[in-house]
């Protein structure tokens, strides 16, 4: 394997990891900006979505149906959590809300352990056929599905925020909650929407990666942490920044593991996070001087 095809192979690997991190970062940033809650249970939505879809598929439903049912159920779970836990505590401090989401994360992980146990589960690949050979690198077709899903979700959200009335209402809530309330936008509804939406995005991401990575009850925690790092690199207020942060993190991890040493992988991610926080604490794509 020569260097150029090795670099290309690693790039595909980095893009796959990066798109998973991007989706989680994106859901984190969207919820954070709409509700002010940094939802550290976001990773659990990924795990629960994947486990649920695997169970539904094992029960005999076709893959597409398992996907839709699981995404809908996790979106409902997100909404339920928002109504039962976040909404009643909405006047609390940011710290209290973060601690609530930590508790949620532990509870959901415990629930998943009770229901699914410790053995990993899997889903079949979305399209059959072996790996494709692209310019000397082998690419699993599922990688293309993951990349496609990340692209579709990102552009869908972009259109939603920029072009739809509801999307603009959401952004209004982010900019000034009181003013939004005065012009007839209900921040409570928007908050509910945000949690349902991040549940759906998390579940979808989990289901798309399961054919490659398998699903376990404890997969969410690490993914949540990496998603948070990606969001912090890109800036907590910017959806495009979060997506960019995810890809930067994924590609850096893979290149440091593949070209230098596999032991360095997580260290590099943390060094980049520290550098980003010190040199550009507002995030890579933030408009400088803006404060929320």
């Amino acid at each position, binding site marked *: 394997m020569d260097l150029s095809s090795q670099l290309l192979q690693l790039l*595909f690997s980095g893009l796959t990891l990066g798109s998973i991190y991007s989706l989680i970062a994106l859901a984190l940033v969207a919820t954070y900006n709409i509700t002010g809650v940094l939802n550290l249970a976001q990773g659990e939505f990924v795990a629960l979505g994947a486990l649920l879809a695997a169970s539904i598929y094992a029960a005999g439903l076709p893959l597409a149906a398992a996907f839709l049912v699981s995404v809908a159920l996790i979106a409902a779970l997100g909404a339920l959590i928002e109504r039962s836990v976040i909404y009643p505590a909405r006047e609390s401090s940011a710290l209290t809300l973060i601690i609530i989401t930590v508790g949620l994360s532990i509870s959901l992980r415990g629930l998943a352990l009770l229901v699914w146990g*410790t053995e*990993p589960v*899997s889903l079949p*690949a979305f399209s059959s056929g072996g790996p494709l050979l692209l310019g000397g690198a082998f690419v699993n077709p599922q990688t293309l599905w993951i990349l496609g899903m990340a692209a579709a979700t990102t552009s869908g959200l972009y259109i939603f925020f920029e072009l739809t009335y509801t999307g603009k209402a959401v952004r209004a809530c982010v900019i000034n909650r009181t003013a939004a309330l005065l012009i007839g936008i209900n921040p409570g509804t928007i908050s509910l929407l945000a949690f349902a939406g991040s549940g759906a995005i998390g579940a979808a991401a989990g289901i798309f990666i399961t054919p*490659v990575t398998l699903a376990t009850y404890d*997969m969410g925690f690490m993914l949540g942490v990496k998603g948070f790092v990606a969001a912090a690199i890109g800036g907590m207020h910017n959806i495009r920044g979060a997506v960019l942060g995810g890809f930067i993190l994924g590609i850096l991890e893979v290149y440091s593991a593949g070209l230098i040493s596999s032991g360095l992988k997580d260290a590099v991610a943390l060094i980049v996070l520290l550098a980003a926080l010190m040199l550009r604490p507002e995030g890579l794509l933030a408009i400088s001087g803006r404060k929320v």
Partner: protein
Amino acid sequence: MKKKRVLTGIIAAIISAGLLLSGCAGSKETLKTGDGGEPYKIGAVIDVSGSSSSLGVPEKNTLQMLADKVNAAGGINGHLLELIILDNKSDETEAVLAVKKLINQEKVLAVLGCSSSGPSMSMIDTVQKEKVPMISLAASSTIVEPVQERQWVFKTAQSDIVTINKLMSYLKEKGLTSVALLYMNNAYGDGGRAAFTAAAQANGVKIVVEEKFEATDKDMTPQLTRVKTSGAQAAVVWAIPPSASIITKNFKDLNMGIPLLHSHGVGNQNFIDLAQGAADGVILPIGKLIVADQIPDSDPQQEVLNRYIEEYSQKYNSPPNSFGGYAWDGFYLLVNAIEKVGADRAAIRDTLENTRGYSGVSGMFNLSASDHNGLHEDSMVMVQVENGKWKLLK
């Protein structure tokens, strides 16, 4: 103070969820009737819940099944057997508390357990001090070594070094002298790496590249591209699922073109199912249980393997695995010793140490004062996955 009430409610909910998870501390069977004298009490500390539960559950099932069988047949020399199984929740501290309870309150004759190496190690001090025989079901060789400090401790699972020697002989036989070693970054992977490195040096096998990955990693392509550029003749992976399954899939996607050898950590059907075809061709050393239908009739273990498979499948509607096999062997080593010498801890220990030629599920046990495991390379076989099935390699 509505806010405060809400917060208190949330905290209470979280705590109660935690309690729910850590609860259910095991089962106890009380038997007071018997034809003969007092029942014989033996204890077991098993990882029934927590991270090692996939090991502990088949072990608990096996012990329960065997205790019922012994009692249905009238017990041991007319004494019924009272088996007390406690759950250590895969935790060292819980294991120590459980073993102290078994010894001080229940006054058991001997202790079986634990399922994994960490909790087993944590019980050693107590059983050594109290002079109670203990039979561990875990892999690490340090559980029974140095044997001068472990007079009361025995174990039934093959030690890491037995597995690695089996693997080494295979590599040498096939002329695969430059290999890549990939291992997961935890106690299991590190233990395998240390033992493999030492054995490779002794056998003239060269490790040309060494890579590690986290148990939670989702993609091992980077590590494998390094293996691909290193010119290794074979790759040896020391890991358990799910990371062992992911690396197996990546290995196939990358079209590596060299043999892939795993440790016995992937030795169950679930590994093959999860890899969805990518496991075909994988080679590993493992106990004979999963290929019991393929071993020759002349094998001294064949009878016990078939008996275990039949009895377990009948009772639990699923095939047994090698972890349950460790429990089977521990149970019978102990019951045979009690049958011979009765309720005397020191005599039970001496009898265990002098057990020779006991044909168990995990192998032919030949224990001695210097070897408290008693299993050798002949207890393992090399198997290969073929069309989603385990196949014995000659």
